């Protein structure tokens, strides 16, 4: 049995209460949502928080709904709910694509979208989904709420825009028309973290790409994406050749590190191969050729 070091435990009753507890206990306190990233680190004693503030009782953070021209997702929405959401399936099948390959049902029943973003793991799948979709994150503190573009949310491995006594409460994604989206991941085994993964949405205007977003996971892509590839595609025709060129840019510009999941050259290759595949799939979906 692996056991964490000694810690105190508090149960927050509201978002304000959670923030007040964070302020009270200072930077040795950590929020705990699904616990599927934090607890393993505590058991290995890589994380040794003195106080855990449990936010599982909080209400009003588990919604997936249309709010104006955006889809709003509460921070405590579990992976399983994202996987099953009809609303997301309609607008952004990229979520279900990604969720199907995140961890396993046990983890998905507890792990949350908020925890996934705040963990800031370079191999987190939802991070590149959010990056591809150019969503935004709503962060609350005792001073009030602020909204940060997801592309500015991740500030390096395990570092995010969420400050010490702050809490992520919601993620928002613009609703777009004439679009398709897709996610693809290579893993060594079901439930494993990505060797590499890519996600994309493609918005079509006839045969032209009106807008496009690319997300890249576990390949050391700056900000989980490759703006150069997006720029190359935007405003031009959606052709296999141009997808290949954009994918090649992802290959050239990402900066993967070699580890036991694979060597650098292979991960670069995957950045290219998977980007190419998701651009094709997203386009086919935008054209209604594929579900």
């Amino acid at each position: 049995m692996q056991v964490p070091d000694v810690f105190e435990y508090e149960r927050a009753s509201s978002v304000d209460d959670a923030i007040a507890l964070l302020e009270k206990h200072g930077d040795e306190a950590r929020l705990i949502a699904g616990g599927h990233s934090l607890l393993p680190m505590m058991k290995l004693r890589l994380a040794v928080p003195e106080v855990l503030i449990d936010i599982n009782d909080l209400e009003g953070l588990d919604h997936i709904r249309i709010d104006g021209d955006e889809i709003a997702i509460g921070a405590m929405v579990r992976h399983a709910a994202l996987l099953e959401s009809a609303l997301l399936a309609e607008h952004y099948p990229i979520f279900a694509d990604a969720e199907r390959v995140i961890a396993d049902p046990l983890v998905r029943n507890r792990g949350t979208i908020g925890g996934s973003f705040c963990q800031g793991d370079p191999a987190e799948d939802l991070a590149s989904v959010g990056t591809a979709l150019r969503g935004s994150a709503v962060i609350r503190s005792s001073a009030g709420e602020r909204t940060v573009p997801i592309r500015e949310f991740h500030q390096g491995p395990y570092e995010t825009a969420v400050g010490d006594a702050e809490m992520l409460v919601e993620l928002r994604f613009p609703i777009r028309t004439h679009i398709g989206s897709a996610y693809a991941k290579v893993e060594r085994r079901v439930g494993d973290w990505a060797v590499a993964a890519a996600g994309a949405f493609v918005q079509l205007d006839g045969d032209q790409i009106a807008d496009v977003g690319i997300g890249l996971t576990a390949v050391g892509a700056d900000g989980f994406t490759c703006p150069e590839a997006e720029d190359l595609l935007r405003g031009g025709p959606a052709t296999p050749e141009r997808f290949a060129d954009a994918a090649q840019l992802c290959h050239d510009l990402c900066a993967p590190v070699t580890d036991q999941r694979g060597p650098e050259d292979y991960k670069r290759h995957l950045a290219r191969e998977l980007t190419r595949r998701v651009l094709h799939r997203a386009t086919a979906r935008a054209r209604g050729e594929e579900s």
Partner: protein
Amino acid sequence: MTTTEVPTSAEGNPIGFGRMHRKEDARFLRGQGTYVDDVTLPGMLHGAILRSPFAHARIVNIDTSAAEAHPRVRAVITGETLEGLGLAWMPTLSQDTQSVLATDKVRFQGAEVAFVVADDRYAARDALELIDVDYEPLDAVVDAKKALDPDAPVIRDDLEGREDNKIYDWEAGDAEHCAEVFDQADVVVTQEMLYPRVHPAPMETCGSVASMDPVSGKLTIWTTTQAPHAHRTLYALVAGLPEHKIQVISPDIGGGFGNKVGIYPGYVCSIVGSIVTGKPVKWMEDRAENLMSTSFARDYHMTGSIAATKDGTIQGLKVDVLADHGAFNGVAQPTKFPAGFFHIFTGSYDYDAAHCNVRAVYTNKAPGGVAYACSFRVTEAVYLVERMVDCLADELGMDPAELRMKNLLRPEQFPYTTPTGWEYDSGDYPRALKEAMRLAGYDELRAEQAERRRAFEAGETNQLMGIGLSFFTEGVGAGPRKHMDILGLGMADGCELRIHPTGKAVIRLSVQSQGQGHETTFAQIVAQELGIPPEDIDVVHGDTDNTPFGLGTYGSRSTPVSGAAAAVVSRRVKDKSRIIAAAALECSPDDLEWEHGRWFVKGDPDNGKTIQEIAFASHGNLELPEGVEGHLDATAVYDPPELTYPFGAYICVTDVDAGTGEVKVRRFIAVDDCGPRINPMIVEGQIHGGLADGVGMALMEVIAFDPEGNNLGGSFMDYLLPTSMECPSWETGETVTPSPHHPLGVKGVGESATVGSPAAVVNAVLDALQIRSADMPLTPAVVWRAMQGSPLRNDLAIE
């Protein structure tokens, strides 16, 4: 060879009630099993082990004062403490020694350095962080291929006169004759391959609860062991404790796969902890400890060469092995065979000559080598030959099924003596291969593959398809006393059968189930022999005070050895029941006939006595013939005359994504011949599990080490085990060729699928890619690199 005397397992006539539900499942399904960690004794304390962060380092100083000052800590034990008791080192199962708690150096990452005993397991773990060890790091030997370099650091400087890292060189076969055959052959193919270091990773990790009674001087130890009797004798020899004052109890065991054959430092520490504190001490390792410090398996670097005529007649096979044994030689092999049964590497074919050389080395890695359904290295042997045959097929442009069919031993060649001296008992190999090809629809698969190839080459798909074969022969049921012992202990198994007056029975065995269903299988054997229903038969095992001596469960030996003992002891009871029945029926034993658990007078079927009636009579006042004692109990010791040789034909179908290197096992067809099947459901369960093992090893399992000797497989995030998602719905089939020398004709099956399946998966992937070589595990990265012609070294950190 006769096939009629023994019952066959063609459904409808299996042994002893066949496909009955497992008797032990009721308690497991209700969560009422008792594992070592469920054992709680009054006043019990908890131990935890401090482990080395370095692969190779000198210990300069250990300061335990802060840990000792922890309010809940009762004792801190170091190598120095143990030295005082003569217990700092212990013998391994291979005539080597292993440090219990390091005194001079640590020799692998995860090596045991100190043992804390505390009031609870949390305090024990917390106190580990208070121990201050001053290490002087040394260069580590990580790459086995460099272990014998002249400038390699000497790992075992504790051994007198030791100047290098060589453990042994061992050979089998006729090198000279082999060289001649190779010189004259039309075709010779040589291939390097690695069977990487893998781990058995049983669901239950290792642990023990030791209780030394200070008054009686009796030590009771509940422990995760597959071989309780061997452990008892070893404790007696190591610790100098009198053997009759040691009781080893192996309660329910959550998987073993060889991981629980040897004695681990933690067990010894819990015993010492109990002696020092006067209280029972529990030690239970965590997952990382299990993966990093307990017995691994394989780690064989092999170079094979196969010789054949142009038309595909195999003539010779030779192999050089570099075996990485880690820091201590901790394998469990019969003394005569330092490389286990590896010299069965000629497999299922006929040759003119064969030769192998195995060179074993020390490295700065965890010791072991016994584990994971190793069948004493038959796994490595089968992998070698089945990969080599595919390489030859590739060279000759021949279908691998056709090449195998051409060279398989023929039924009339049995009993067959191999070029390296094994005597195979029985087999009909072509029949098994034909059956597997029939179940697979081999020709249709090849046609589909050709179409897929065409589509791939035309750019219509990036999915390739591969078909892989493997034909294995195992030697199991170790073993004949004349050839085999472990640390001087012969490998015969005892067995006791007690028949109560009402005809219920208790059978006591030395082997220990880790999930194999012994409580059912052995009851079924007695039921078959005596006609007593299996539910009326209790199987007692896993407690040395209550069972006869024997060497335990591993190497697929339980049914071949103890199963035979169970049959023999039942037959003794039956013979005696005949005499007693004759006395009761007032006739001569010769006038009696046996059917369905009852003796009756020949020609007068109504005039008889059931085994239950006879049991009662044997305990009653019936007058018995001169010299016949009362009761029906019997004992037996079974010394197997020879090994048994199960075999099988496996076919794997894979889909490979050429764009990403991802492999999917689409189908797996396994035709096993393990002789008659006692409980076909249990046999199939063993095969299913072994196939999953095989897929795991072929596709994802490996423990690699970085240049500093850090273990890169120390958690289930890094050491991947297959899940149901990676396993297809297994397609099993059978042929039945009884062993001529086993009382029931059975051959053993526990490891067959683990032994046979990895080569089929690898062959299938390589067949899809049309390349000749890539080493396990075939992760997407490994496959992709192999396709690029720049393969990875899977035993080292990926560079």
